[in-house]
């Protein structure tokens, strides 16, 4: 009787250990699957960094007609556009990071640090100006550089400058052929140039500076101010469309 009880107890203990082992294996497999899924999801996410230029004690340019009620500072316009573009991109499935979400001062190194830590697939630096017409796109003037073990911080963009030029061309195409939901509207004039940009020169991702200027007619008279909400929406829609094309060209759905 006692021996029978002992045998039952021993067999019960063995069964318990077996169940525990099975559970551990099952949980372990679930955990590793979850980690793998997270890694795949992280690899698949398409990160775009939006860098609203200026901020805090650095107001940038004064925009809008002087003395007009619409007169405002560049730092406010770039922040507003960054926030609106973020909403457009999130709705399209992008992972979006902003370098600043309020009126704070950031130096160029801090902006580049945010971009590089995000391992972004694209970075758009937003500027606004009263000079010129349409949209001005600028890519770093650094010459391309082969991958190296140690990359100088101030010229890190040289690793991605060719991709930045491709991104600039994609944005250029979107602006020159843009239209809202089939609506027939004039394309936005675009200039594409290269220059030294201390912030962008330190970014290790495709990066383009986008400067929005007033729309002017052939006589140079302003048709749409930079502060015009409709004009801004037009520009932002074109940017969102261009980034969709950029994502599809990168092989993402």
């Amino acid at each position, binding site marked *: 009787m006692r021996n029978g009880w002992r045998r039952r107890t021993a067999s019960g203990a063995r069964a318990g250990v077996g169940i525990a082992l099975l559970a551990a294996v099952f949980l372990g497999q679930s955990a590793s699957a979850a980690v793998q899924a997270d890694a795949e999801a992280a690899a698949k996410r398409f990160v775009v960094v939006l860098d609203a230029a200026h901020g805090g004690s650095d107001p940038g340019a004064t925009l809008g007609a002087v003395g007009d009620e619409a007169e405002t500072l560049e730092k406010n316009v770039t922040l507003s556009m960054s926030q609106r573009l973020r909403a457009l991109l999130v709705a399209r499935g992008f992972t979006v990071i902003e370098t600043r979400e309020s009126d704070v001062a950031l130096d160029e190194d801090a902006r580049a640090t945010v971009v590089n830590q995000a391992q972004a697939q694209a970075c758009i630096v937003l500027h606004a100006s009263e000079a010129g017409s349409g949209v001005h796109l600028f890519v770093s*003037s650094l010459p391309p550089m082969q991958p190296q073990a140690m990359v*100088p911080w101030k010229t890190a963009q*040289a690793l991605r400058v060719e991709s930045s030029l491709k991104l600039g061309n994609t944005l250029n195409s979107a602006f020159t052929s843009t239209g809202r939901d089939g609506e027939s509207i004039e394309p936005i004039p675009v200039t594409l*140039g290269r220059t030294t940009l201390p912030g962008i020169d330190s970014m290790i991702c495709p990066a383009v500076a986008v400067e929005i200027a007033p729309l002017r007619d052939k006589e140079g008279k302003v048709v749409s101010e930079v502060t015009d909400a409709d004009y801004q929406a037009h520009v932002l829609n074109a940017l969102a469309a261009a980034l969709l094309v950029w994502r599809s060209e990168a092989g993402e759905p």
Partner: protein
Amino acid sequence: MTPRYQKILFVVLFVASVTMTAVLVRLRERAHDRLLAGAMEAGTTAPAVAPLEQVTLMVADDATSTLAPETIALPLPEEPQARARAVLNRLLSQYSGAQSLHPLPTMAEPVESVFLMPVPQANGDARRAVATGDSGRAGAAGGAILSVPKNADRIAIVNLADQFAASHPSGLETETLTVLSICATLHANLPEVTEVRFLVGGQERATLHGHADLTQTYLTAASAAASGAQP
């Protein structure tokens, strides 16, 4: 007890010394102003007898974001630094015209001075090339130097007026075009100028008016290429 005549003498001498001090300070200020005025006019006011010379201005166009050559005749002084200053002031004054394709505010002397110096050799070249990202000249990560500047190469230090920088329109494109236009015009008229650095009011400044980077050394040949300058 001090005699009365001594008190009067003391007061008279004191008043005379104060007056003389004020007069001396004023004379010194006037002499300083005259010197500054002379320096401002030196080189830019060409003598009437100076022959007209062909000058190429690399004129910026905001609409196309390019530089286009424009040849004009201008009386120029002999001294290279004064010539460079005269040409740049002519270029920038052109932008204040009503029909300017790159409008800038009117100003008499936007360029206060131009200094021409030999390009620093070896270490200086590596520093500059790295600063501008010219990895071809600096070598990988500032390693072997593949090209050493020739002895004839000059670096131009362009000292812009404070008021010019303060009144310049703020924007990435407009500021960049102004900088590239200055660099390309210098190179077009003084081919030995291969590099340009900028000061504002005699001091180093991060940007022209919030955008164009003034901390780096610009390569004049690269400036023309970057701005899509027409041949």
